[in-house]
């Protein structure tokens, strides 16, 4: 069980800000593959992961970082703060 959060256009494409996901994915990349296989809206959101960023427990990480022990995963486009 992992909390998955979506922000900005990822959130809009999926139509959801957050959800709890039952998964044994070992990495964010594997989780993305699982989600993209669910429904077209997920496939659309995750079509190009090079345009996305991922945070594990609120820290930026890479898509092949280990998911073991992580409680919160977030997917979003590159930030535009400041």
């Amino acid at each position, binding site marked *: 069980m992992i909390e998955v*959060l979506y*922000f*900005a*256009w990822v*959130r809009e494409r999926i139509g959801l800000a957050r959800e709890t996901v039952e998964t044994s994915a070992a990495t964010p990349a594997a989780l993305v593959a699982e989600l993209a296989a669910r429904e077209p809206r997920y496939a659309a959101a995750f079509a190009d992961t090079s345009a996305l960023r991922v*945070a594990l427990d*609120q*820290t*930026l990480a890479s898509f092949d970082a280990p998911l073991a022990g992580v409680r919160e995963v*977030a997917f*979003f*486009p*590159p*930030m*535009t*703060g*400041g």
Partner: protein
Amino acid sequence: MRVQVQTAPFDPATELAGFARGRHDIGATVSFTGLVRDDTGQLVALDIEHYPGMTEAAITAMVDEAVARWQLVDCRVIHRFGHLTPGEPIMMVATAARHRAEAFAAAEFLMDYLKSRAPFWKKEITDQGGDWVKAKDSDEDALTRW
């Protein structure tokens, strides 16, 4: 040191009142304010989304690094989210250091990191709808100088 992430509007001059005052070990302060700019006259609003929790943690980590690296005597960051209209301040950074080079470098470092590493996303709202602002390669490139 103080980090504020808020929806409420703020006035940069009011926020700077008292910053770095009453001390004798500060030679320089720098402040930066980012405002909602409307290049086309079409902008109705800027909607800013953020990642509650991570935002505060990410900015605090940047501030801690800037304080250590340039031995800042004081540092403040304010960043708004939510619905902003043209001309409104979006965010502010203030740094206080012994010398001017340190105060400037720390402020520019914080701005570069806030642009690309703080979890905010801007959407420009016009009469035609909304457009997510795209991250610029030049903003990502700016990080390499630090």
